[in-house]
């Protein structure tokens, strides 16, 4: 095949097989819970089968081998000859991981090793189980008895010959000899009849049925011929003669129908482009609205109001297209929970609620890592060992519940466990031990404030750093990430009953709530989620501390930064201070004017300005001016140090 076709095929395969592979993770976990679910078994079998078929054409031998073994195992299982137990499931999941790796390798064009023999061995059904589906005994096959269960071209031709006549080719009857069930005379008579009626399947198909009964009587043969001479109906259906048609050995049972193809796959880039166009329309509308209000022309105002309504509806519809059910985010967790619970020796039931809640596509991606961390944490630190639970009068199996719901303009996702809960006293003590605060401060904390300590950097309640969740990145990283997304993370807990982490994020990332400020002649939009407060600098409030300009504010030294220096505005810095938190750093930004809050549609600046630190995009204000939307995390470097352009010298 020509190479361009090949690469196109490869891309098709990556997308299509990729979807199957993605679903497999969930399906396998489901299968573990109900290993006798015939429909699920079939679906899983078919997925491996289909991937194998495609991989075969693309000559991806490692993938063919892997899928072939998985498929074999599942085939035996779906024939009821083997139950997929935990160790089989381990092997299947490992195979799936490897398959994922192979898909990635295929996508990147890197080399692919053959699957390890050990894994293939583990996928091989045990000796006790028949490797092949047990066919309903085909009493006497028309063709020579199988040597290895396969068939070659000549055998097939012979088979067809025995069924329909060989069109005069000699040697055809040989096929029938082995069974001895039909005499030469009978066979010739059959051929004559078939030839007379046009010896091809369809017109005359069928006589093979005779073979299944092993023998054929004169009466049967006559009635068979009658049928053939008649309307040409399928003998299997109407003739009394043939014994029951053998059930095709591997004909799969019916499956749940896939969703009918009333959806169109759209590149997300095109979707994003549409979102931005809709955003521009909204901006034009804003300008028109303010113009209409100025002119006082009633009909213009009416038209502008109408446009307002339509543009709103359009924007909502377009934003809706970017939505994905939270289930897409949740679907990777059953696997994680399964592996983790086995690793930790805990028994865990994962419950999902509100999977249908819609979330912006980009958030689904962005929340994946923080969610994984929260779940690991719930399993590792939240849930007790089964014995400990039993002693506490709880069921051995712990419960972790993932929930999602929409509250106004926010999506709230919760991760709850019914584990040991958190002890405020221990948290206080740890906070002091770790030098996060002194004892007086710790004792003043409310219970809820105690729980919040877990979000402090470098805080871990686990006595020993475990392999699971105590890997240095703690809850503080999760919190920082969530806040960057414009969200909040909070915690509730009840000693002995369990803990709940609640994560709330905006419905969409396309619209941001910002504080609009002016620096010189420039407008900057600061994400409101990072803004703590705004105050005006009093004369003499600034001072120099360790070579840095700070303001004493609320009894603490607040580092000041000149946003004017950063955006290249000459002249004196403003005297308004916007207090921002970036991660755990607090920073007072000097600006000339604070204009107020606004909901803005953030437009990316395009490839030319991609990667400019601290700039998330731009937006056009109601009066048609351009404002830069800031990505405040970009104001500091990897080590959390402020960009040098922001530094103020005394």
């Amino acid at each position, binding site marked *: *095949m020509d190479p361009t*076709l090949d690469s196109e*095929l490869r891309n*098709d395969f990556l997308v*299509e097989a990729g979807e199957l592979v993605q679903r497999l993770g969930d399906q396998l976990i489901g299968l573990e819970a109900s290993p006798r679910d015939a429909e699920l078994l079939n679906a899983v079998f*078919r997925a491996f089968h*289909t991937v194998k*078929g*495609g991989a*075969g*054409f693309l*000559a991806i031998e490692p993938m063919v081998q892997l899928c072939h073994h998985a498929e074999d195992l599942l085939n035996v299982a779906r024939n009821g000859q083997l139950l997929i137990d935990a160790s089989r499931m381990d092997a299947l999941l490992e195979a799936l991981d490897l398959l994922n790796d192979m898909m990635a390798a295929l996508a990147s064009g890197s080399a692919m090793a053959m699957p390890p023999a050990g894994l293939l061995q583990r996928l091989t059904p045990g000796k006790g189980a028949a490797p092949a589906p047990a*066919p309903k005994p*085909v009493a006497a*096959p*028309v063709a020579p008895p*199988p040597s290895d*269960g*396969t*068939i*070659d*071209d000549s055998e*097939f*031709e012979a*088979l*067809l010959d025995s*069924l*329909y006549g060989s*069109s*005069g080719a000699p040697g055809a009857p040989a096929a029938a000899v082995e069974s001895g069930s039909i005499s030469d005379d009978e066979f010739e008579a059959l051929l004559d009849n078939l*030839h*007379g009626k*046009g*010896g*091809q*399947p*369809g*017109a005359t*198909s*069928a006589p*093979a049925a005779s073979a*299944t009964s092993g023998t054929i009587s004169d009466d049967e043969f006559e009635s068979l011929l009658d049928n053939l001479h008649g*309307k*040409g109906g*399928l003998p*299997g*259906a109407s003739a009394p003669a043939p014994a029951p*048609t*053998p*059930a*095709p*050995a*591997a*004909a*799969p049972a*019916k*499956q*749940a*129908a896939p969703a009918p*193809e009333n959806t169109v796959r759209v590149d997300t880039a095109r979707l994003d482009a549409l979102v931005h166009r809709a955003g521009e329309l909204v901006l034009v509308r804003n300008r028109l609205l303010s113009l209409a209000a100025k002119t006082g022309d009633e009909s213009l105002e009416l038209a502008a109001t109408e446009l307002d309504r339509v543009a709103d509806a359009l924007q909502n519809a377009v934003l809706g297209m970017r939505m994905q059910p939270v289930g897409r985010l949740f679907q990777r967790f059953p696997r994680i929970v399964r592996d983790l619970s086995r690793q930790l020796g805990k028994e865990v039931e994962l419950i999902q609620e509100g999977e249908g809640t819609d979330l912006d596509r980009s958030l689904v991606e962005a929340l994946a890592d923080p969610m994984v961390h929260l779940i690991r944490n719930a399993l590792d630190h939240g849930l007790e060992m089964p014995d400990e639970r039993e002693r506490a009068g709880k069921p051995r199996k712990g419960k972790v519940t993932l929930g999602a719901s929409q509250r106004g303009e926010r999506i709230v996702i919760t991760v709850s466990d019914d584990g040991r809960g958190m002890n405020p006293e221990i948290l206080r003590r740890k906070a002091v031990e770790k030098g996060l605060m002194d004892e007086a401060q710790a004792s003043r904390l409310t219970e809820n404030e105690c729980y919040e300590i877990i979000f402090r950097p470098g805080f871990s309640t686990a006595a020993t750093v475990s392999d699971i969740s105590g890997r240095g990145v703690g809850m503080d990283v999760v919190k920082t990430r969530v806040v960057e997304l414009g969200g909040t993370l909070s915690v509730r807990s009840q000693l002995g009953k369990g803990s709940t982490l609640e994560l709330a994020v905006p419905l969409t990332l396309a619209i941001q709530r910002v504080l609009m400020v002016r620096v010189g002649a420039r407008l900057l939009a600061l994400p409101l989620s990072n803004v703590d407060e705004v105050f005006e600098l009093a004369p003499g409030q600034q001072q120099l501390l360790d070579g840095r300009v700070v303001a004493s504010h609320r009894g603490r030294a607040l580092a000041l930064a000149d946003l004017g220096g950063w955006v290249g505005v000459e002249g004196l810095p403003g005297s308004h201070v916007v207090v921002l938190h970036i991660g755990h750093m607090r920073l007072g930004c000097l600006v000339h004017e604070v204009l107020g809050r606004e909901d803005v549609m953030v437009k990316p600046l395009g490839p030319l300005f991609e990667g400019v630190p601290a700039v998330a995009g731009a937006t056009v204000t109601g009066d048609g001016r351009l404002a830069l939307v800031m990505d405040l995390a970009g104001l500091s470097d990897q080590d959390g140090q402020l960009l040098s352009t922001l530094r103020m010298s005394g």
Partner: protein
Amino acid sequence: MKILVVDDFSTMRRIVRNLLVELGFSNGLIQEADDGENALTMLRNNAFDMVVTDWNMPNMTGIDLLRAIRAEPSLKGLPVLMVTAENNRDQIIAAAQAGVNGYIVKPFTAVTLQEKLSKIFERLAASGATA
């Protein structure tokens, strides 16, 4: 020659289509269906000269499609080439008994496909000649 390619995996339909085109069949005359049921509907509504169908499909499998074709007076003479993943004797016997014209095991090359098609056409021609 108007050909219907039936497979639930679109990549596979594309592969079969490419191979057929490589053998000189007209791309414009090749149509696709993603399962047996849809194939049957298309076959009823349009005149096709041949069906190349996968065996293992949801809703309606290839063998069921074959049986349905043979059971339908207007379609029963239609040549059917069955694509299977395994060279499984029992399966192929079952398919032959249900009236299949040929079978081909994945993965296959254009050459193999050519051979299989030739055999089908030879048999059709011979049967036509002796009729």
